């Protein structure tokens, strides 16, 4: 694999920008975790709300930078020609950098209550979760999205020649721009403001990013495993359609308690319960595609992160999302730490890991370093993966006791009643966060210096176990039956978690105030789900590693240094 089109190289700067933003986002995240544990930390110097705004905004921005990088890298391959108007892409990059710096700066103004009101709009910062950026930055971002959509559509072949991946990415980049527009107006009522805020947040994630995600996963699997575009196309079409069929009305799960009518509880509970379907579908296809042939994986880190993306999409978005999507469970989980447990796994897992996976695929190709030392990438994967699962576990368990103290007992003194009982979980967030941050450091070091480091002879290439006979035990090939058993196991724990949240409605808990049932169910459900997730990924990767036969590895390594 080598670069076929020169403009593919434009993706490099976006991947590097992604890494820089990721470092800052993780840094702000660690600070937030420390402030959760000690709310007085840096109070008055940089308040929690400012740090959180930076953490959320940078999180969205680095995911977008990763998407743009991946789209630019595969765009020419999909179109069999160079990108249209590369100068626009360069302009987009600098505009993005300036906007990010500007936005990071203006968020600080919330400390003194400056929003920059002019013509009825907040121009400097908006103070709404996820869309904190002020109108000035919003408009530049709108122009940026328009540029991306224009370049992608101009680069693609005529519509009559489009396959499903073209359609997915084409619709994705246009919808990215269109959906953003709903966040560009100041709305004076809370219910309508929240209604449209979720247009941006939910439809971006569920309607647009998911579509880009499915298309990119499809394309990367084609590149990694050389699978049939047609079978991937089938998965992409039905994946996207299922996402929309469930997610369109599924948005109603955000409209339960914001002042909109009760009927949303019915529609939201019904349709968002279907939202995991496309994720199961996508998950299953990754299994099929990865096991289509017995060739060794050439680029293990890239596949690790793509697998991580699909699995965490299943666990974070699919299962944890499902547990809290019913009106009867959401009435308890809403507005507690249960929500960030889902949010962190779903957002970083699904979209963040995809961007990193794409970077691991593209960067070695662009640097002509296909024989790069894959050990650091694998280590970074395991640290990020387990670190994020640990963060989610801390949020989920902390959220469960928070529901009991705050909702069941109605004790609303956070400093005096709610925090003390959440204490141990508040400490667990920064601990898991440190593990994650270590992973960020190794990942960034590896990707930035990949192909530029002096390779030590002993450590070069893979240190695969030399499997001469057919592998057995933990590393034996994963059958479809076994994979479906793992998936069933995950959903079983998901069901336990759901029952745990439901049990807050029981007389025993709600009136008598006995939390034993929800505590036990959460205590089994969350750790069980996260443990089985780790084991499954370990098992999946072990079965793939095992098929790497030593002679092919050596032959490849001998060819590569060019």
């Amino acid at each position, binding site marked *: 694999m080598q670069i076929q089109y020169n403009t593919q190289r434009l993706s490099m700067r976006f991947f590097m920008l992604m890494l820089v933003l990721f470092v800052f986002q993780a840094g702000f995240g660690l600070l937030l975790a420390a402030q959760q544990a000690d*709310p007085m930390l840096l109070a*008055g110097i940089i*308040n*929690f*709300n*400012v740090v*959180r*705004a930076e953490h959320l905004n940078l999180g969205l921005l680095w995911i977008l930078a990763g998407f743009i990088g991946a789209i630019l890298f595969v765009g020419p391959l999909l179109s069999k020609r160079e990108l249209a108007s590369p100068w626009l892409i360069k302009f987009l990059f600098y505009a993005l950098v300036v906007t990010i710096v500007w936005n990071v700066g203006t968020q600080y103004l*919330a400390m*003194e*209550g*400056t*929003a920059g009101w002019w013509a009825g709009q*907040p121009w400097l*910062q*908006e*103070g*709404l*979760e996820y869309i*904190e950026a002020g109108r000035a930055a919003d408009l530049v971002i709108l122009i940026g999205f328009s540029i991306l959509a224009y370049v992608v559509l101009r680069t693609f072949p005529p519509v009559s020649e489009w396959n499903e991946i073209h359609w997915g990415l084409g619709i994705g980049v246009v919808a990215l721009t269109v959906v953003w527009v709903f966040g560009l107006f100041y709305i*004076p009522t*809370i*219910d*309508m403001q929240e*209604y449209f805020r979720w247009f941006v947040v939910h439809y971006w994630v569920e309607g647009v990013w998911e579509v880009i995600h499915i298309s990119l996963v499809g394309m990367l699997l084609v590149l990694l495993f050389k699978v049939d575009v047609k079978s991937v196309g089938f*998965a992409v079409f*039905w994946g996207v*359609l299922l996402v929309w*069929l469930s997610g*369109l*009305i599924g948005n109603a799960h955000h409209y*339960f*308690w*914001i*002042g909109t*009518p009760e*009927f*949303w*509880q019915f529609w939201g509970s019904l349709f968002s319960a279907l939202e995991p379907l496309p994720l199961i579908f996508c998950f*299953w296809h990754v299994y*099929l595609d990865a096991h289509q042939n017995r060739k060794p994986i050439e680029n293990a880190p890239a596949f690790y992160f793509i697998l991580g993306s699909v699995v965490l999409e299943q666990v974070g978005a699919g299962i944890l999302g499902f547990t809290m999507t019913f009106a009867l469970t959401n*009435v*308890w989980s809403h*507005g*507690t*730490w249960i929500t960030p447990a889902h949010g962190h796994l779903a957002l970083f897992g699904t979209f963040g890991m995809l961007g990193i996976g794409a970077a691991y695929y593209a960067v070695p190709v662009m640097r002509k370093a296909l024989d790069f030392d894959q050990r650091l990438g694998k280590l970074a994967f395991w640290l990020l993966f387990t670190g994020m699962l640990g963060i989610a576990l801390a949020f989920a368990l902390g959220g469960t006791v*928070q529901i009991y103290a*705050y909702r*069941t*007992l*109605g*004790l*609303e003194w*956070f400093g*005096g*009643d709610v925090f003390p*009982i959440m204490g141990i979980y508040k400490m667990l967030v920064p601990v898991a966060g440190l593990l994650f941050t270590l992973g960020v450091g190794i990942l960034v070091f590896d990707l930035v210096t990949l192909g530029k480091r002096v390779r030590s002879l002993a450590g070069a290439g893979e240190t695969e176990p030399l499997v001469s006979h057919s592998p057995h035990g933990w590393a034996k090939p994963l059958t479809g039956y076994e994979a479906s058993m793992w998936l069933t196991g995950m959903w079983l724990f998901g069901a336990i978690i759901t029952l745990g949240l439901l049990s807050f409605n029981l007389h025993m808990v*709600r*009136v008598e*105030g006995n939390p034993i049932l929800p505590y036990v169910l959460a205590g089994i459900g969350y750790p069980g789900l996260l443990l089985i997730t780790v084991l499954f990924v370990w098992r999946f990767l072990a079965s793939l590693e095992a098929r790497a036969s030593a002679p092919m590895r050596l032959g490849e390594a001998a060819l590569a240094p060019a």
Partner: protein
Amino acid sequence: MSCADGKNCNEAKKRRRGIIVLGLMIMIFIILSGFSFLGSRGRANPDAISFGAHQAADGKRVFQAYNCMGCHTMVGNGAYLAPDLTKEYTTAGPAWLAAFLPSAAGWPTEAAVRTQLTNSDVAADAGVDNIEDYYKKFPGARERVERRGGGTTLMPNLAFSSDEVGQLIAFMKYSAAMNTEGWPPEVKTGSLERRLALLNGGSHMLATATAASAPVAEGASATPADPVARGEELTKEYACTACHALDDKRMVGPGWGGLYGSRVKLADGSTVTADDTYLIDAVIAPDKQIVEGFPPGVMPKYDTLLKDDDVKAIVAYIKSLEKP
């Protein structure tokens, strides 16, 4: 699961059907959305809700300008560091909020809440003018004053102007008026004592009881003979520092450091010396002489709340504060 080559699985037809169903979903969603915002539903309207002269609609802009949602939640959305504010007005009421917001780093004492009730706007909004009735109407305020009053909070002081405080209260009055369809769920676990006992198995109840009684005991027990010490105590009890800095910084009102004996320029153009008479007047009848650059009607009148000796003690305390 996929359609293999050569097999006829009517793929094109299935896909068309799928897209038609999607169109149906879009229609359902649009219809439901239309119903949600019909005028006849009687949604709470921020333009029709006010607190004194302050509009809820303005309060929403203040709420966003300080990114309150970055720590608190509103209708359950936002960060999860601090409590949900949707029903805060119903819980604690306007007088407690007016006492709390100017200096959010400290929990208001009963004296501070009572002071706010002397403000006719606050009393009119609360619908009661004495603290006993207020506690009956807003039981959350009593719980907070008794358990937390005089202690420090985990919220940083924000530089709200007096207008912004009023606007935020109006905004929370609006959010409390919204129909959130039964969220947050009603608490059914009984009395506060029972709920605290459930939380920490009884030991906690003792701890909070001591914590709550501590500041009260301190204030009520020995009245110090030294007027400066007494003034300092009263300053704490009445949360004067919610609006006045102990150095010469301007907060909601003028700073106290070095104020005594200085020349003060008034709004009517004249200049006076800040002596005992002036400062006593400033406490018991603040609108008589308004300092230049400060709006009238912000500082409550303490004539009925404080005894003459207490006012003198506070003035003595002010006198003891030097410019840094």
